[in-house]
Structures are given as C-alpha cells and as structure tokens.
C-alpha cells in the first residue's frame, strides 16, 4: 500500500508535478552550486524545515478553499485571532503559576473553538447567504484582524511556558517538531481529499456547483465544512507561530497571504476550483522556502522579496495559461484528426 503510494509519487500521475519536481531540483542544484558552504549544511536544512510549517499550514488552508472554487482571504487574520486567544491564556498562566500542561490544553482548546467559529462565520456567509468568497472573507479578514487588535490594543503578548515553545523550536531525532506536525497535517488533508466523501464533494463543487447540487450533494453543508477546516488549519498555523516567536503581535504574517496563494497556484491548484493535489502543493512550498532561504543568505532586502513573490505569482499564472492553451489546442487537433480518420474509414 505504502510502496504503491510512493510509486505513484515517483512516476507522477500528474504531469504538472513532474515539472514542479524538475524546477525544485534545479533550484536546489543552483543554490548548492552557488553557495556550497552555506546552503547544503545541516543547520541550514534544519532551519528551513522549521521556518516553513507555520506558513505551510496556511497554504493547506488556502488549498481547501480554492479546490471548491473559492478563496479564503481571512486565513492570516484567523491565525492572528486564534494566536491572540492562545497567547492570552498562556501568558496569564505564566503569571498566575498555572501548570503548563493545563494551560497548553486550554490554549489548544481555545484555538480549536475560535477557529471553528471563525470558519463557521465564513462558511455561513458563503453557503447560506450566497456572498462570493472573496467579499465574505475580505470582510471577515477585517473583522478578525480588527478583533485581535482590539483584544491586544495593538501591543504584543509574550512570555509563554517553556514547554509550549518546544512545538515551534524543538527537534525530535534532529527533525524539527513543527516539520513533523506539518507532514502529519498534509497527510490528513490528502486523506480527506482523496479518501472521503467530503473531499470528493469538494472537488465536485469546485468543478461545477450546479452539477454537484443536482447530483444530490448538499453544497451548503460541504462548503461550511470546508471553510471550518480551512480556519482550523489556519488556527493550527498560529500554534507554531506563537511558540516559535514566544510572542504574538496582531498583524503578524500579513505577507503570508500572498505567499499562500502563490504556492497553492504554483502547486497546481486551479483558482477556479476542481483541481489540486497535496504532492504538488508540498513541492511548491519547498520551492518557495528554498528560494526564500537563498535570498536571505544572499542578503536581499525584504522589498526585493515582496517584488519577487508578486512577480513569481504572475509568472506561474501566465505559464499555466499558456501551457493549458497549448494542450487544449493539441486536443482539438487530435480530435479533428480522429474524426477525419473515421470519416475516411466509413467512405472506403
């Protein structure tokens, strides 16, 4: 079973993933050749593996929304809100001397509850009231981010129990714990998408909401579940965020929104919905992280990176468009050849 999955990953059922794999390897090669003493060191690899999970969770969240043909602009805001809620509980526990274990359980519970409610709000607006996902999540983005600013008055909250910081900074057998958590989440999302009714229905809605509705799918229920799962993943991102930084400042990670959309699109998820797979998105996340680390080592300014991400997003989208155009044109040509063939066959 496991080897079959591995085989499928290696043989690339999806041609886009093959391209992604080649790009990823090319970037690794270029980085390794350009700075052999800095890039392929165990410290750099370890730091890369601990840097991206907080953002990787947001990308997984964005992926779920996009597969149904929607988008969630509130992922970073949800992560901020849940982060503030958890940070309040954790820092209060340090002050009051509550046992760290109890505080951590309470913080995680708070994150689950807050993110579920946030997702329910998004899902209800989209599924019940028929508000387009862009506008609904644009509004809730303001609401959630505004709430986290109100709750903290714009200040950062810091000082969490030592035990909590292990999640973001600790290693297990030399592998960052946050990286392990990310892989586990990615595996669960992949099971959800490929093995469950919910996942199947999400792809259906993404391809055509009308068809899925008339095939007996309860679109409302599926969409609300999707946005709750999306918010849940965003909430989990905040666990890693706050434990890595040992503090929470509202407005943290706003640049992640663009990057999340970038990797999801780069990873082969169709912004119009209906297509997307986990291996592609994971490779896209790796590509982004490797490039990011490379730019950091070469000391590029954050402004240049901002420019880069915008440029990369547009480039990927244009390339996708051109490739799709070419393949659809080829399909039409093949189809017309086929018909010619049968025509002559009939006349002879």
């Amino acid at each position, binding site marked *: 079973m496991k080897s079959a999955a591995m085989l499928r990953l290696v043989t690339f059922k999806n041609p886009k993933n093959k391209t992604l794999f080649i790009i990823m390897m090319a970037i690794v090669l270029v980085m390794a050749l350009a700075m052999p003493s800095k890039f392929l060191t165990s410290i750099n690899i370890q730091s890369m593996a601990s840097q991206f999970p907080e953002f990787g969770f947001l990308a997984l969240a964005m992926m779920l929304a996009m597969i149904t043909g929607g*988008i969630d602009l509130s992922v970073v805001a949800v992560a901020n809100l849940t982060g503030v809620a958890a940070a309040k509980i954790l820092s209060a526990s340090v002050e009051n001397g509550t046992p760290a274990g109890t505080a951590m359980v309470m913080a995680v519970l708070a994150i689950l509850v807050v993110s579920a409610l946030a997702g329910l709000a998004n899902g209800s*607006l989209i599924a019940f*009231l*028929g*508000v*387009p996902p*862009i*506008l*609904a999540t*644009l*509004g*809730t*983005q*303001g*609401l*959630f*981010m*505004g*709430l986290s*600013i*109100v709750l903290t*008055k*714009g200040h950062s909250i810091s000082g969490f129990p030592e035990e909590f910081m292990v999640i973001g900074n600790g290693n297990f057998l030399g592998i960052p714990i946050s990286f392990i958590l990310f892989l586990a989440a990615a595996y669960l999302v992949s099971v959800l998408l490929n093995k469950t009714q919910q996942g199947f229905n999400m792809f259906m809605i993404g391809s055509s909401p009308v068809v899925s509705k008339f095939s007996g799918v309860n679109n409302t229920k599926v969409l609300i579940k999707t946005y709750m799962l999306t918010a849940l993943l965003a909430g989990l991102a905040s666990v890693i965020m706050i434990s890595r930084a040992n503090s929470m400042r509202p407005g943290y990670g706003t640049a992640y*929104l*663009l990057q999340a*959309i*970038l990797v999801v*699109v780069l990873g082969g998820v169709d*912004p*119009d919905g209906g297509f997307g797979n986990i291996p592609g998105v994971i490779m896209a996340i790796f590509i982004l992280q490797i490039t990011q680390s490379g730019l950091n080592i070469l000391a590029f*300014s954050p*402004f*240049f*990176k*901002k*420019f*880069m*991400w*915008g*440029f990369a*997003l*547009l480039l990927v*989208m*244009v390339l996708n*468009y*051109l490739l799709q155009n070419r393949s659809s044109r080829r399909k039409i040509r093949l189809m017309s050849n086929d018909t010619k063939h049968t025509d002559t066959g009939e006349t002879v």
Partner: protein
Amino acid sequence: MNIKQLMKHNETYILLIILIFSAALTMINPVFLTLENMFDLLRSSSGTAILAIGVFLVLLSGGIDVSCTAIAIAGQYISVNVLIATGIDSIALAFLISILIGVSLGAINAVFISIFKLPTLITTLGTSSLYHGLLLEVVGTKAVNAGDLPESIKAFGKIEILTLTRADGSSYGLSIFFLILVILLLLTWFILKFTMVGRGVYAIGGNAEAAKRTGYNSHKIQFFIYCYAGFLAGVMGVMHISMIRYGNPNYLVGTELSVIAAVVLGGARISGGTGTLTGTMLGVILITILEKNLILMGLSSYWQQFFIGVVIILGVSITYAQNKFQARRNLSIGGA
C-alpha cells in the same frame, strides 16, 4: 418614484443609515453638523472617493482591484522625487508624471487580465506586491518631509474654491479636492452613460460572452477600465501628498480594504453589471464618517478595522441575501 420602488434600491438604505448615523453623532457632539466639519470631511474623503470610482468600474466589469493603492503610492512617490531631483516646482508636472505612471501600471494589470485571462483578484494581488516591492527597492524608502516637499505641492493642498469666515475672523473653506472629485465624477458618469466603451463596461460585466457576440471588443474595454483606474489612482496619489504634506512610500498601501468596502456597500456586485456611482459615493461617505468619528463615539481607534469588517459583512450580506431570496421567489413563481 414611489416609496416601494425606492425601497428596492441599495442607495436608499445607505442614505438612511448615513442620516441616522449623522443624527446620532450630532446629538453626541453638535460640532459634527457644522459646515466646517462637512468641508473637512469632503476634503479628507475626496482621495478615497477617487480611488473608489476606479474600483467601482472594475467591479462593474466583474473584477476586483486591490492594486489601486499601490499604484497611487507609486505615482505619488516617484513624481515627488522627480520634482525634487530636477528642481522643477510644478504641480502640473507632478500630476502628469503620476498619471502617466498610473496609466502604465494599469495597462500592465490589463495585460494579465485581458490577454492572459488571469483571475483579477490574483492578478492585482500579485501586481500590487510587485509594484510596491519595486518602488521600495528601486526608488527608496526615505520619507519626504514637509521641508523638502516642493512648494507648489504644498500650495495646491491649501487652495480653496469657497472661503467662509468664522465669527472670530479666521477663515475656513471648501478644498479644491472636492472640485477635482466632482469633475472626475462627471467625466466617469458621462463615459459610462454616453460612450460605447462605457456601455461596454456594463455589458462585459453583465455577461462577457454575450457582450463579445454583440460586437464589443472586450480587450479594448478591459484596457480602458484598468488604465482609467490607474489614471484615477495617479490623480489621487498627488492629491494625497498635497493634503498631508508628507510623503512616505509605505502610506496608502493596506487601505484598499476601505475603498473596496465603500464600493461594495454602495451596491456594486462583484459578479459585475450592477451598481451606480451614486451608491459608490454614498458608500464612501458612510465609510469616512465611520472611520473619522469612532473617537467621537467614545471608541478608540483600535476599533477601526473591526468596524470596517463588520460594515463590509453587513453590506454584502444584505445585497447577496436579497439576491438569493429574490431568485428563489422567482423560481417558485415560475414553478407554480
């Protein structure tokens, strides 16, 4: 028009909300309903209103534009730096450069959206990051203080088209910004109402395929929309710096949420084809009153983003819920 018809329009509801809100504010603080405060509101909201016209046009065509603020700040910062570097102290040149930059950046948006058929949200998210990153990387991050600012830009912000005198002899007036806004509104109204390309904006927003088959050139229309939105952003950029007399390349970016909120509140639908300029302006007024008077209402400025979020959610919920239930009613009538 009778009341029943009036109640079908989004504009009526917003106007009612604005009136109720203003009455409440006046009761809390009578200063609100003075001519001076009104003039001040008009001056400070003109910029948002001009950006809103551009975003409105984009929404009307079935798209969304989050890059307008990045374009405005690029136009502003580059034109001011050119003026300082060359030593030419002319407001006309500032506007010219800013508008040229605005139109070109708008055209780049249009290339992606019209030729490569990319989704408008993702395109403008990408270009806004690209434009702003490039501006900070290439032009710089240095703020321009009032002392370094060309005189003509500072002077322009102080021009008044109507000056009134207070009881104590000091004067206040209606800023030239309001005149610019009115001219741009009339221009946009004329284009939308009387020109082929303007009707085309409604047409491709209503149904792109149908518009194409009717003979509208959708490339031309989309280039017009994004270049015009860029032009408006360019005008707004120079106005903004002459108002606050301080140039910071990190300003404006991030406020696109309020602009979109205003347009959406005004009743424009993201699916395109519906919406009015009147509604958009009412939306801008509502958002501005809300933003400027939170403190007057006894709430600290931390609440600003929260309230904008609430207002957007309420606005879109009403618009789309109405739409959905209307459709259901029509369906059931059709079934019976």
